[in-house]
């Protein structure tokens, strides 16, 4: 029983980390920049297809394909940011929602056109398959990898955004554009870079998620609800909040399904509703 509990907690945490890598980019674009980017998972999907193409057509190893997913999603997002998104930074949320959800439809249709509507499986290297046995307990190798990746990403982001000069610039530009501009900061390019960072993280998240949740052209819609829950529960603008929220949601989801399978699938929503009742701004929300 104790063994079961440990394994379930680990699985829940690992699933939470999957949610984290999928949603951390959104806590940058939505959370930091205040841009309601529902196209977030479309960039995740782009990252996923990058990995599929890189591994299948270019024979790239998985670990090398991951940064590629980040870079391509970031570059494509800059093109969109410069041409479309930036016009809506100051527009109302409804406009942002309409534009970005429209883009998800366009992305779904485009990927279906080029790659077909089927699943796109990838074959992981041997060392990421199977499981690691500790005593009588088994832990999935890929889940361990996910946890490590999520911790790395979270650490880098927290340090980068809160303890570097560039991070300070981003926070300044987001908090008060006019003053930041007055102080000589190039707000325009800071926004472009931040948006690219968020979308690149989305691409990386999508790439990491394929192994567990699969990839097809409806990816952009499928996981949108999960990432929005994570960002809402974590609180806008807080990377740490997203991390804690994702971990809690993952653990709730998996333990719930394990102990009370009949209502298990619903628990994640119940958790969100209760938490937002108590703390409408989310766990670490500031505004």
């Amino acid at each position, binding site marked *: 029983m104790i063994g079961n509990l440990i394994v379930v907690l680990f*699985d*829940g945490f690992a699933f939470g980390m999957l949610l984290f890598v999928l949603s951390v980019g959104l806590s940058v674009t939505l959370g930091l920049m205040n841009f309601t980017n529902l196209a977030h998972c479309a960039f995740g999907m782009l990252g996923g297809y990058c990995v599929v193409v890189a591994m299948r057509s270019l024979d790239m190893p998985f670990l090398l394909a991951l940064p590629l997913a980040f870079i391509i999603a970031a570059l494509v997002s800059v093109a969109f940011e410069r041409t479309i998104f930036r016009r809506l930074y100051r527009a109302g949320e409804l406009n942002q929602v309409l534009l970005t959800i429209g883009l998800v439809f366009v992305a779904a249709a485009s990927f279906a056109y080029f790659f077909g509507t089927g*699943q796109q*499986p990838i*074959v992981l290297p041997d060392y990421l398959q*199977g499981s690691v046995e500790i005593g009588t307990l088994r832990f999935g190798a890929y889940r361990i990898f996910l946890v490590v990746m999520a911790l790395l990403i979270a650490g880098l982001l927290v340090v980068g955004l809160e303890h570097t000069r560039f991070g300070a610039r981003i926070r300044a530009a987001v908090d008060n554009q006019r003053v930041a501009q007055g102080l000589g900061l190039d707000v325009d390019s800071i926004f472009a870079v931040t948006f690219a960072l968020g979308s690149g993280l989305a691409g990386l998240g999508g790439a990491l998620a394929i192994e567990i949740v699969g990839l097809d052209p409806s990816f952009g819609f499928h996981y949108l609800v999960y990432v929005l829950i994570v960002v809402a529960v974590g609180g806008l603008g807080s990377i740490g909040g997203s991390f804690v929220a994702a971990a809690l949601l993952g653990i709730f989801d998996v333990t719930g399904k394990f102990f009370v*399978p009949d209502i298990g699938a619903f628990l994640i929503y119940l958790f969100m509703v209760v938490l937002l009742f108590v703390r409408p701004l989310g766990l670490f929300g500031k505004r």
Partner: protein
Amino acid sequence: MLKKTATALGLGFGLALAMSSTALAGGTVKVGLILPLSGQFADTGAQIERGVKLYMQEHGDEAAGKKIELVVKDTGGPNPDVAKRLAQELVVRDKADIIAGFGLTPEALGAASVATEAKKLMVDMNAATSVVTEKSPYIVRTSMTIPQVNYAFGKWAAEQGIKHAYTIVADYGPGHDAEKSFAKGFEEKGGKIVGADHSPVANPDFSAYVQRIKAANPEAVYIFIPGGAQPAAIGKALAEKGLTPPDTKILAQGELTLPEALQSMGQTAKGIITAFHYTLERDDPLNKKFVAAYEKANNGRAPDFFSVGGYDGMHLIYAALEKTKGDASGDALVAAAKGMSWESPRGPISIDPETRDIVQNVYIREVKEVDGKLQNVIIDTIKDVKDPLHGAK
């Protein structure tokens, strides 16, 4: 100049006359296809449509001297209201003689009343809930029913000496059907179900359910999961926790080991036993020809059970028209379809004259490595299986 124009006009007129007269002699039979071509089930719809188109490409667009014309409509997913509206539009506006397609049960249920009122043949090319064919006397099915495959599979499993099984199915109509019919067959032959779980229809992570199964430590696990991302997800979760054949027998309906899922699961899929009505690799000249032609027409994409449902549905339409000598009225076509039997890429199939449902072989397959590639190898065949639920009440 004037003369030239006059000749041209005359020529054009004559040509038009000639064309319309041949069309009149033969006439046209319009087939309205109602499918989910966008949204989450777009792949289902696309594969059925490809099957339909391949049949027409191979057999020409004429049957019994009539030109067959397709009108394709998209439901966007499991929307009964949309399917009903599209069926009405097809019958009233497009003057369709036959309605066909139906990737999902709700679509078929939505359109059934239209078929009855308009007295049009309705060919169910996929929707697999048993009750569909009972909703209208004009419905004929060319796909499969879930109880058909799983009741037979349950009996087979118990006959192989498996005593205890744990079932996990997706929590929706087809999943419940699969759970019940497998359990019924299994228990009739002396097996015992030791646990039964339902997972959400779109469940991203199966570790919790698999851990429950592991804790119960059953001799065998039975799985029913819709195609898409989930087969590979549950397969990998089972392997991660060490629930793999031969230590734990894994039984499932065929979706679990579709080619993409096998590719993603890798070696851990070896030994999984599935039951299905269509097997891509079945060694049979007709099937080989079908697969080769399908892959050639669709950029290397292999056919699946959706495709074969569409392909056979089209065969039924062509053959029924031949039998009625081109009479496309619903009553004549349904009468012609009853009792029809033919060789399909999936094997010998027929239409039960009483229930208008399909009778076919259920293949029991095991995942094995053949020439370095994992595939479903047929290890047993249960012949001429009928849906066990029709007339059971």
